[in-house]
């Protein structure tokens, strides 16, 4: 199964193992239950590493060598033989990846072991690590399945482990945060479900259709039908469905004005939870938006370009301005995510291959950098018991490793050349300039605000101190001498730093496939839509 259908394996194996490790201790005899609890952490890590190895091998052996300009829209590699899950309503298990989803798959497979490593000593590890494993399966499922029913199920399934990660391992306000997180994202996804159902009731491919309903959830077939102009007849209804999908995806991303759950969830979540939330879960929104809303309704997307620009611009600027006012390190990093996600909307709104590729690379680079930021913030919380900017100063003296990681992370996030974030920002901004001319000054100048809040927070935390040899230690330490970060935190952050530098210097590993995919996407989908709407390509 691993060789014949690797995507199914990497999706279902973690869920199966995670559930087994969670349930088995409740039903097994006591001695065996203890043993299972003991090895749960290692087993989870083992499988997570195995999945990382599989996806990396796939990339190096097969996916990295594909010329994506030859792959037509709607074609997927590694696609499996479809398994009918429910014939009556037309649900099938179909998985496949293309250049849009594979970077996300690899990113998820890479981040899961890293976040497990960073929280290697988590309390109740025999529950914590299997939960993260279930999370991995759900996240990978969202990126690989090509059936909207199963897509929705995985989409909702990601909520459950994350909900428990926040509720059980979170900070003092964890109840409020997890409830807000759950209600926001769940309500939004219900609206998305309504949109999916409207699409469902307009499908008509008889070979896939359910025996009772006469419709199906197959995404590939829906895309083909939409390209033929036959998915939803009325344009008004198409716009309506597009808006429903946008609400679902934008809440996950999150974009202003539906972003307010994010700072609370991040501040309260445990480190690994924050890393996955920022690293992958936010990307689900952008991925779903491109995969479903933009691909199936390109004309609506063209019509709503002004809306996308407003949403993106407000998220970018508002997020950055709010960042400047934050006194909590983690909250600041959370708002910076809102700000960076705004760039993705702007990149899509440019309707240039470069802009879309930039948005894709933004998803990827932010998926490496923001977990690094949250790992740093988590380590501060862990070792200094506070996240207040300014309550601790001159930390570089006490925790040189942490200070080093913080510096690289902060620099990468503000867009320093040769680090991964720069590539994405430059691509989006150039594309923005090509389309909208001098309007580019608005997002470009926002990057100055970004630099301001990152540099001040860094300076106030790791450099400046009363006595250069001691610094100022926060009161929460009660006079104790802090130690530098543990080996596993250090190792996890090292991996992230390495990838940040690698993809900053050599972005073409993933940039090439993203750029080819965007070109193909423009040519086959968006150009026609722009022509029909009278927008100059």
């Amino acid at each position, binding site marked *: 199964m691993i060789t014949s259908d690797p995507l199914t394996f990497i999706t279902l194996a973690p869920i199966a193992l995670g559930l087994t490790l969670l349930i088995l201790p409740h039903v097994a005899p006591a001695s065996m239950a203890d043993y299972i609890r003991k090895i749960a952490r290692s087993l989870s890590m083992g499988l997570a590493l195995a999945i990382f190895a599989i996806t990396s091998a796939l990339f190096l052996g097969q996916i990295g060598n594909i010329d994506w300009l030859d792959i037509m829209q709607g074609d997927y590699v590694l696609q499996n033989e479809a398994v009918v*899950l*429910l014939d009556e309503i037309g649900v099938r298990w179909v998985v496949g990846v293309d250049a849009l989803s594979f970077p996300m798959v690899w990113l998820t497979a890479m981040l899961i072991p890293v976040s497990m490593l960073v929280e290697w000593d988590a309390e109740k590890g025999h529950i914590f690590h299997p939960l993260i494993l279930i999370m991995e399966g759900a996240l990978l499922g969202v990126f690989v399945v090509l059936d909207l029913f199963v897509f929705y199920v995985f989409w909702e399934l990601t909520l459950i482990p994350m909900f428990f990660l926040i509720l059980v391992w979170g900070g003092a306000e964890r109840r409020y945060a*997890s409830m807000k997180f759950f209600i926001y994202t*769940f309500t939004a996804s219900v609206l998305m479900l309504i949109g999916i159902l409207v699409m469902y009731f307009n499908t008509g491919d008889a070979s896939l259709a359910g025996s009772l309903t006469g419709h199906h959830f197959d995404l590939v077939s829906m895309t083909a039908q939409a390209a033929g102009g036959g998915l939803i007849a*009325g344009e008004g209804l198409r716009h309506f469905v597009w808006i429903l999908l946008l609400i679902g995806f934008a809440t996950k991303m999150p974009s202003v004005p539906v972003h307010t759950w994010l700072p609370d969830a991040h501040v309260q979540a445990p480190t690994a939870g924050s890393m996955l939330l920022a690293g992958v879960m936010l990307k689900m929104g952008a991925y779903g938006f491109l995969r479903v809303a933009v691909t199936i309704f390109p004309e609506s997307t063209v019509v709503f370009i002004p809306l996308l620009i407003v949403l993106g611009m407000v998220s970018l600027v508002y997020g950055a301005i709010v960042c400047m006012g934050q006194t909590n390190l983690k909250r600041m990093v959370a708002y910076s995510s809102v700000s960076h996600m705004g760039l993705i909307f702007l990149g899509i709104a440019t309707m240039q291959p470069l802009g879309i590729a930039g948005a894709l690379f933004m998803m990827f680079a932010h998926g490496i950098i923001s977990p690094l930021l949250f790992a740093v913030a988590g380590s501060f919380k862990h070792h200094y018991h506070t996240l207040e900017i300014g309550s601790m100063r001159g930390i570089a003296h006490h925790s040189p490793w942490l200070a080093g990681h913080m510096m690289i992370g902060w620099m990468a996030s503000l867009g320093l050349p040769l680090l991964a974030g720069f590539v994405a920002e430059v691509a989006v901004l150039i594309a923005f300039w090509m389309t909208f001319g001098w309007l580019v000054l608005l997002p470009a100048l926002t990057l100055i605000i970004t630099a301001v809040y990152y540099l001040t927070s860094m300076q106030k935390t790791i450099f400046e101190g009363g006595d250069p040899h001691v610094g100022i230690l926060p009161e929460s330490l009660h006079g104790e001498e802090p130690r530098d970060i543990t080996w596993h935190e250090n190792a996890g952050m090292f991996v992230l730093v390495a990838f940040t530098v690698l993809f900053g210097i050599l972005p073409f590993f993933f940039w090439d496939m993203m750029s080819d995919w965007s070109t193909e996407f423009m040519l086959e989908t968006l150009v026609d839509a722009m022509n029909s709407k009278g927008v100059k390509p």
Partner: protein
Amino acid sequence: MLTVDEMENLLPEMALVLGIILAILVPNIGNATFRIPLTRIRVPIFIGGKRYKTTSDPRLPGRMSIAVFSVALFFSFFGIEGASGEIGGVIEISSFSRMMSVVFFGSLLLAAVATTYRMPARPSARAPRERDTESRAEALVAALMDNRRQVDFHLLLMMVGLGMSLMAMASNLFFMFVAIELTSLAAYVLVAFHKEEAVGGEAGAKYFIVGSVSSATGIYGMSLVYLWSGDLDFDALAAAWAAMDGLDPFAVIGVGLMLVAFGFKVSAAPFHLAAPDAYAGASSPVAGLLATASKAMGFVALFRVLIEVTMPEEGEALWFCLLALIAIVTMTWGNLAALTSENPKRMLAYSSVAHAGYMLAALAAVGSGLGDASTTKLVLIAIVFHLTILVLFKFGAFLVLGLLETEGRSHRLEDLHGLARRDPLIAGSMFIFMLSLAGVPPLSGFLSKLLMINGIINISAGTGSTTADAIVPWAETVDPVFWLAIAIVLNSALSLFYYLRLCLVMFFEEPEVSKPLRRAGHLRRTILVLAVLSVFFGIGAGAEFLLDLVETAVAAM
């Protein structure tokens, strides 16, 4: 006298009759007096002395009724395929009636299992204390070891089962009413059986008064129908209805009055007002029974009268507008009332009203006359499937409340606080039940709702303008039936709030009692099994199997 073939066809009912007889006789074995069930009257029979220990065992009646319902469920389940037969001109056995029997016996079996743990011999029975005198203590122990009350309860359950099963097989209006009355009378007593709390008797009285008034209305309607046609056989009525020239006032008023009786059974607005009180006052297993089996029975009656008798060959049925209106009012009223409810049982009761609204909406869509035979069948499959799986998650939710009742009350939302901490598995199951009620994929509740909406949309298909390019002009051209689907979708979205609220208090609030939940062995296991089945019948092989079964059943209607 019944022939062997006929007896074979009636095996589940035979099992019930046998069970009823045994439940009357067995607990008296060894005693010198014979107690007439449900009374305190003892008839001397002059043989024997004291009852044996086994025959006065409080666990005996529960075991008997579990065995009887299991046997009946077994025979009905394996009788679905290829069931056919006609007995005495009033009973017609078909796959459909057997499928409905499976629903009835399934929920009765759950009620029987759930009751074994929690029914004290007398409402006020208690264990003896140290300061009690010796004779007083002995009397208290004897009261605890008595099984009279359990016998009565399970006897009533079996009578409910017999009535429901016969009702599903009735091919004659009169016989159907008799069967419904058998069920209803037993159900009134079951509701009032919850004497541990003051509200029990009140609930029983309310349910009895409203129920008997609605029954009387229905029977009056039936008599008008008889005046009109002179025959109460469904086939004859259908023929007479089809041949009717214009509208005969007797026929129309008669059918309308009968709808009142059935509307009460399915708790459709405005006849639902007694339902929340009855559910909240009854013990949880009985409330679950009313919300699943009793509702299914009401729908069978509606199928018979609306689809089989009064549905015209083509064109709109007489009742279309009325039923569509009732459906929308029912679901909206149910959901709005549930939103404001602070009592989990009342909340579930109103949610059950809302679910009746969804099913009525689907049924009303059939009455629009726009669909053909296949779309009608699709809608009926959706309704029967929904009735079937409601037994899993609706009853499951009531069983969780029943488990809470074993240690006190479940009348306030606070009783559910922190359930996740006290018993994670039960809280997880309740979470699944709630999501399934709300209709979240991939749970079975979503599948049935999708099928209902799909049925309605298929019926309205082809009415909307294909050239309109904005929503408003398109909406003006589409048939009103389409808006029933929209009403279901909007109401489902509304219902999420109270279902999730119930879940949130389980996970977020501090429990009032911090000790773990009582481990009531097989009640707990039953809940877990129901939770697994709610997922199993939602996607994959399980759902296909059940849908095939329902399809067979509906094809036989």
